[in-house]
């Protein structure tokens, strides 16, 4: 929709352009920004001029995903890749409410920065131990685990003017076997619970709850846990919430059921 209050638009072409004036915000894929009225927003800084869309395996075998890489491009890359963890990238892309048309514009970095509970790029990166390079507004650079970026449903720990430059997925996680379950109140509705997991080559296991909880719940095990243990951990997890896309009790219940399936698939 038209953003009635926006009076200025500028395209960033270097780091010096990232200093935000009052009322300004960054624009990545724009698919969320343009989907709701944005009261108080007066200016947009388009990050598209920066490039930031690299998608490359670095020397140690890590995958570096530029923040402006579209979710569609990541999914297509994963589709072609024979890395054991690649299917999770594709599955998480498809877990979004967004159609393929939105995925063609929405960015990986934007999805993480928005920090919706149902943000499936958060799920993907949290499951694969993804780390974000965060360009702070004060000029510094931090490495922040993606699982730690969400502060609440739709609220991140990023400060005003902080930008995610790229997300790195380490090679060890990319070599892991992964599993994925998802449920929503409708087949392709916004996720009510998204359950992901990976089993590393050393047998250790990471299970992640997103969408059902306000922020990601990352459960780490030295080996794939039993179904009973998973159910108990899922039921004990904090942060289940109620909104029009599902009630807290249901999100908690189905998270336990489906996370046990994830563990079973990884066993």
């Amino acid at each position, binding site marked *: 929709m*038209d953003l009635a209050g926006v009076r200025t638009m500028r395209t960033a072409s270097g780091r010096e352009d990232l200093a935000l004036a009052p009322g300004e915000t960054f624009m990545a894929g724009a698919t969320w920004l343009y989907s709701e009225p944005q009261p108080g927003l007066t200016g947009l800084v388009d990050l598209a001029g920066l490039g930031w869309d690299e998608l490359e395996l670095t020397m140690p075998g890590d995958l570096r995903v530029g923040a402006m890489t579209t979710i569609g491009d990541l999914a297509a890359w994963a589709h072609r890749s024979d890395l054991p963890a690649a299917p999770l990238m594709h599955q998480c892309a498809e877990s979004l409410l967004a159609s393929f*048309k939105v995925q063609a514009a929405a960015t990986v970095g934007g999805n993480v920065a928005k920090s919706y509970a149902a943000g499936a790029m958060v799920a993907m990166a949290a499951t694969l131990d993804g780390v974000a390079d965060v360009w702070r507004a004060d000029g510094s650079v931090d490495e922040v685990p993606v699982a730690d970026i969400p502060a609440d449903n739709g609220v991140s720990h990023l400060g005003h003017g902080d930008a995610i430059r790229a997300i790195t997925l380490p090679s060890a996680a990319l070599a892991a076997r992964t599993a994925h379950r998802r449920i929503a*109140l409708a087949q392709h509705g*916004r996720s009510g619970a998204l359950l992901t997991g990976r089993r590393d080559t050393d047998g250790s296991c990471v299970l992640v709850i997103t969408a059902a909880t306000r922020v990601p719940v990352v459960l780490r095990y030295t080996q794939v846990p039993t179904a009973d243990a998973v159910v108990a951990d899922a039921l004990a997890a904090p942060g289940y919430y109620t909104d029009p896309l599902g009630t807290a009790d249901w999100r908690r219940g189905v998270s336990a059921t489906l996370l046990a399936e994830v563990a079973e698939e990884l066993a």
Partner: protein
Amino acid sequence: MTYSVNGTPVDAAPAPGQSLRTFLRDAGHVEVKKGCDSGDCGACSVLLDGQAVHACLTPAQRAEGRDVTTAAGLGGGDGLTEVQEALADHAGFQCGFCTPGMAVTASTLTSEDVANPEALAQRMRGNLCRCTGYRPIREALTHGLCGSGEGCGGCARTLGRLDAAPTGEHTGVGASVVHSAKDRIVAGREPFTFDEMPADTAHLSVVGSPHAHARIVAIDASAALAMDGVLAVLTHEDAPDVLYSTGRHQHRTDDPDDTRMLDTVVRYIGQRVAVVIADTKRQADLAASAVMVEYEVLPHVLDPEAARAPGAPLLHPDRTPADRVADAARNVVATVHEETGDVEEALAASAVVTDGVWSTSRVSHAQLETHGAIAWVADDGRLTVRTSSQVPFLVRDELARVLGWDAERVRVFTARVGGGFGGKQEMFCEDIAALATLAVGRPVAYEMTREEEFTRTSVRHPMRVRVRAGANIGGTLTALHVDVLSDTGAYGNHAVGVMFHGCHESIAVYRAPVKRLDAEAVYTNNVPSGAFRGYGLGQVIFAIESAMDELAHDLGLDPFEMRRLNAVRPGDPFIVAGAPDEDLKFGSFGLDECLDLAREELAGPDDVPAPEGWAVGEGMAASMIATLPPRGHVAVASISVGADGRFHARSGTAEFGNGTTTVHTQIVAEVFGVPRSRVRLTHADTDAVKHDTGAFGSTGIVVAGKALHAACVELREALLAGADASDGTPDWGALVAGVDPAHRRGDEAWAEAFLDQRERSVAFNVQAFRVAVRPDTGEVRILRSVQTADAGVVMNPQQCRGQIEGGVAQGIGSALYEEVMIDERGAVANPAFRQYRVPQMADVPLTHVRFATTADELGPYGAKSMSESPYNPVAPALANAIRRAVGVRPMSIPMSRDRVWRMLQA
């Protein structure tokens, strides 16, 4: 910046924050529709360098230097691409508003994408259709993308496009012809309400109430008035002090006079407080947020039971029965209490008794074209309103009354309307657009946003229905008590009609020696409820058909036979809980056949396999509907023919995907034995005919069509009376020249018919499902879906099937997914399609549709109405199937996954 649209270079400068959708529409590309403006419905889909995108989510600046392709340019030049041809030929649309975006999206798919239904549904999840139930769209896309240049068998393309079909093909009554504008519709070239606007049109934006109940103390518009482009700010001081109802009926006294265009008291969150008119929509939106309003907050009540309890805040304390408000001191708009005997005694003597309280949610019509109107004073001095309405004549009459104008000085018309489902049997925007144009002296457009659609129009009345029913050991009903509480929200539009209709055919369908009805419709400080497909029946039928199923279950009886045993049949009176109906008759009776056909179809194989470990069950429900509303429904129609043998039909009823305009041309073709291509139709314009009650109550064929048929028969007789008895090809010139002067209008022969249809027949529907339920997640999967319909003689089988499939899809939406939620303050909590779950392609299964072979005494050619009614039995059939799968009865809809899961946790 420069970019190209459909191959033509364009040089234009978008505003900061402007979306590609409005940028393209400003450039004249009105084929890019607005359904949601939030990237959820897909109606604005375009290609950007070949990649499908939602234009509403795309910053216009990102089109710089790129090629945009819209639905109008998909086929190159004036042509159509394969998927568009297929959508047109397979009737892959009803209202057609979603179709251009659907076609653009589908044009990027491959034969691989359509190879399996799940993959197709996943690819198409960003495109919503509210009318069709998706089956014909799936079919069209599959044929259009099959990858075989010669077509894939059974495909219209193999047969040649229908337009190229040999002349002489039957296009009259009984033929499955598609709307004659189909090629324009799939290309987005058929104009809807906002696709044509007068020059210099200004735009209107609404200031809504943040409080559920408040008195307006002061409004300061000075800051808004000082802003760029602002022409006026209108408040209650500018609005006529006239009470009316937004709900429209043939008799204006059917609805309470409880609404002012702009009031001094606001009674729900979102209600209009003031409107801003500005040169552009954007300026109006900005200025609306600068209007300062001071409120005195009043106590509010959201729960209908609390609303009628002593001490509750009163919404309309000054209204009286003379205003058609039954008991304003209890917030009760309408009330009925009647009985045919002592129900307590009869229940006590029954072998089995069931007793339950069922509830239904608020549902949004979710038609893809939002409400909206453009008003101006035409050169002839008449106030003229182009609107998206089901009832242009009724809007004209009430608008004239509210403004104090003669009705002759007001013209209201519609273009093609992008869906309605009852939501446009209202005057939600014409009033304020008219006031605005009179205030600023320029044309004014008021196009609602999707959020306004949720917060400022109407929803389906939520009802709480208690049913107590008794039967003897053989299953014969002994007593039936129905107690209804209907929440009409802040205003009483349709409160009375929906309550009475909801409790009418639902109860009258069963013969019980003792019946009792208690029903009330109550004001609350919620978004108003209004007319919705089924008009109250669906809510009450959900409860009664659930109770019937429970009795059948307790008695070990076949649920189909339970209905056959207890339903009325020819010879029986129609009794709710008082005196028998006098205007209702069995013009035909198809229930038995519907029951038989449904049982036979349900025995077929699963269309979708049941997953391992899921519980499986079957359920059914029946419904009856009167073929038109009570106490008169008026239609005037005329037909003329010139010496060239071309016909011009005129009727008042609106086309919003219901298919009546197609059938009307078929009627003319049938009566005169001419191809449909020789028939032109003017409709939904107060200038076209003297009066038409409008397109509601499924009357487009059985009233408007019947009037047109009568006019055609009269003209045919007039032509034949003046003609020499001769065979062979008619000489139209001689025939027209020979008619009696009473049947001449200029160079044409002409006839007109007036119909006030009061006698009514009944139609039946039976829905059956087999479902699988996963207890530990609450998921429900429909394995097989069947609906049988007693539609009388089916005038266009493809269209009628489409109405049924669309009704089933909407029924599945209400039963499993859809609920307009209200937060603790009284605000709508999910006013967008990403939170309000309109069924997507993946959510709607194939439904096997069969027709009974009845022919009705009353309808034209033996036809009966069949638009609203297919919706009504869907929710209880699903509930009954779930009940039999899991052993627990769902008591409320939607039976969403969280509710089903919780129901099974106990």
